[in-house]
């Protein structure tokens, strides 16, 4: 009998919440629109790949060798020759203005030194104001240098001792990228974007949940009704859980249908992972909501947590490159676990046998935050 009453009260509470949330056309749109738009735009924008590094060349040697070197740049998919200049000052000026990233300057005597076996060096200026791009460009540069040197050596051997050429020992690397054969960065980023959007959506909605009633003054009205506290909390969180689930399905569809990310794992495992994460995000949002007096305070605090959580989730930057302390710290970050879970299920197709520790951490986080917020809520009313 008591349970039936309880369910009835929660049902009424849910009804109120849904009417309140969906009444305003603005809010209705905010629940789904932004997440969708962001998913599409960020799916495209987030790419670490550096293709076509822009380049300017100053060739003061003008020999067959120097032209051969330049043609290796123009043939490489990683470089795009922006400009052939004739003056040294043009190189400097262009780098200053940001017209190109890399300036290659081949001195006269380049070919002569090669023929004399002296080894030739080429001057390069790199705009390193974006240190990451600069590092990658330097890597490409060395590849071009190595392949030019290799071809030059084989060519020379062919002239001196043609019968030996095919015996020169050579080791190749045969690379097999598993799970994402084309090394497409959308496949890597889309699951991460999904996790981030879910966090922001749910945490913000819940962070507002209780404090809004308190700020407007309707919390007291709710409290004089026979509803119990845990029923109130359930009534507050279930709608956001449902909205979050709906959004998750929507975003997953965009990921698979629009971006072509394969779903190799079991859809049930995916659902479990996302739901447990939602509970963790709900718990955190609710906790902040019970601690805040105004919506502004609650929102700023939520933001204070969101930024480090995003930065330390391994979403944009590899966790293995972080200092050990932060690697350990990131174990407490539910976003880190869900990003890993999403990537693993979508791309690797692994199941619960591999992912259970991550699920467990998220579940513990959810349990802790939810129970603390129910306790705190009790106190805060008395």
């Amino acid at each position, binding site marked *: 009998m008591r349970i039936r009453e309880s369910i009835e009260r929660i049902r009424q509470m849910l009804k109120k919440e849904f009417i309140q949330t969906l009444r305003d056309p603005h809010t209705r749109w905010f629940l789904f629109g932004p997440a969708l738009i962001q998913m599409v735009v960020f799916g495209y924008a987030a790419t670490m790949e550096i293709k076509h590094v822009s380049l300017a060349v100053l060739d003061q040697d003008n020999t067959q060798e120097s032209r051969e070197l330049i043609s290796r740049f123009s043939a490489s998919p990683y470089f795009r020759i922006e400009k052939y200049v004739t003056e040294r000052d043009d190189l400097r000026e262009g780098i200053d203005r940001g017209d190109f990233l890399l300036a290659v300057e081949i001195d006269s005597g380049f070919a002569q030194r090669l023929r004399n076996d002296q080894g030739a060096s080429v001057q390069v200026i790199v705009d390193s104001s974006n240190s990451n791009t600069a590092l990658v460009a330097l890597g490409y*540069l060395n590849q071009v240098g190595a392949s030019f040197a290799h071809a030059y050596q084989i060519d020379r051997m062919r002239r001196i001792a043609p019968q030996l050429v095919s015996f020169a020992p050579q080791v190749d690397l045969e690379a*097999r990228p598993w799970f994402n054969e084309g*090394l497409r960065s959308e496949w890597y980023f889309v699951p991460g974007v999904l996790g981030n959007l879910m966090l922001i959506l749910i945490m913000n909605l819940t962070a507002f949940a209780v404090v809004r009633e308190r700020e407007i003054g309707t919390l007291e009205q709710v409290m004089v009704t026979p509803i119990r506290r845990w029923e109130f909390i359930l009534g507050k969180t279930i709608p956001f859980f449902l909205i979050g689930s709906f959004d998750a399905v929507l975003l997953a569809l965009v990921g698979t249908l629009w971006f072509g990310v394969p779903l190799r794992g079991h859809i049930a495992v995916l659902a479990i992972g996302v739901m447990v994460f939602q509970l963790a995000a709900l718990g955190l949002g609710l906790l902040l909501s019970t601690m805040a007096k105004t919506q502004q305070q609650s929102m700023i605090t939520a933001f204070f947590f969101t930024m480090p959580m995003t930065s330390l989730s391994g979403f944009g930057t590899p966790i293995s490159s972080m200092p050990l302390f932060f690697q350990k710290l990131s174990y407490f970050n539910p976003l880190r676990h869900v990003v890993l879970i999403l990537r693993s299920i979508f791309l690797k197709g692994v199941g619960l046998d591999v992912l259970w520790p991550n699920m467990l951490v998220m579940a513990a986080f959810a349990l802790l935050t939810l129970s603390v917020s129910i306790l705190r809520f009790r106190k805060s009313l008395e």
Partner: protein
Amino acid sequence: MSWTRIAAMTRKEVLQIGRDPRSLLIILVIPLVQLFIFGYAVNLDVKHVPLCIYDRDGTQTSQDLLKHFQATDYFDVVRVSDNYPDVVRNIDHGVCSVAVVVPPQLAESLHSSGQASVQAILDASDSNTASIGMGYAQAIVQSYSAEIQISWQQKQGLAAGAPIVTFQPRTWFNEDLESMANFVPGVVAMVMAVVGAFLTSLTIAREWERGTMEQLISTPVGKLEIQIGKLLPYFVIGITDTAICAGAAVWWFGVPFRGSWMVLFACSMLFLIVVLSLGYFISVTAKSQLGACQMALLVTFLPTFLLSGFIFPIDQMPVVVQWITAVLPARYYVSILRNVFLKGAAVRLLVGDISALAASAVVLVLLATRSFQKRLG
């Protein structure tokens, strides 16, 4: 326009902010936390990639080759496997991101035919680490290959030259390739965008929601006076945040500062006007704090994080996305900051960015002013 009324409006807003010291403290601490994370924790360099090796040859040659993998700090050998299923398990469980498998008879086939290949299995579910790791592996194998080739040539009596083409790169602007120097402009822009648009987005919405807007409307204060009075305190907070960020970056983290502080603060003020007006506009249109907050998040936090060129280079994005970034004021601000910090560029090189920023300031101020009507309903 009356200065007294503006001052009164500002005073009210300052009192309101001051009543909530926790929020104010967080606002001033957020930039430091962000800088700390980007200074100490987050690193875009891919190093210490966990590696698993499986040597099916077990000869001196294969050991030599694998030693090259052990010698760099690009890879950390975390597992040595002795069967293939173990390799697969390690990759599946994420124990390692790269596995190098040396085929049986590597030494023999090198000896007899001169050709041999080594297999690298990459966990490309992290395509970034995978492709960079692939580059490292390729470079290691290449240099090993060159080594054995040179010693072979010497044995054959062919004079072998030294490595023949070397590039001598000079890195300009950020000589030590510090990723911190790269991040600072982005962190400053992100913090300003958030503090500006995020906080102001609530100011008008709050008055509507609490019903105090009617009281405000019944006073003689004009709509322009409300706008200026309400935004002034946040302007001061924003500038303080910029100063904290820039100061900590230069004096604590040692990021070079080569431009002029004048240009930095002038452009920061311009950018603040942009984001404050944006927040004000959102606030007026949304009418509820929840809606305003969601909208402000949509147009500030993630776009500044992902689309401003702060982490992901704009010129590598698809063309359509590049167009979208063109209407994003943060993009120009990040570019200006990067120039001011690292290049110390003359103002004439910044004219394009500054005028784009100024144009968006004009548009948004107009939009904000026109959107607010001093009447109910």
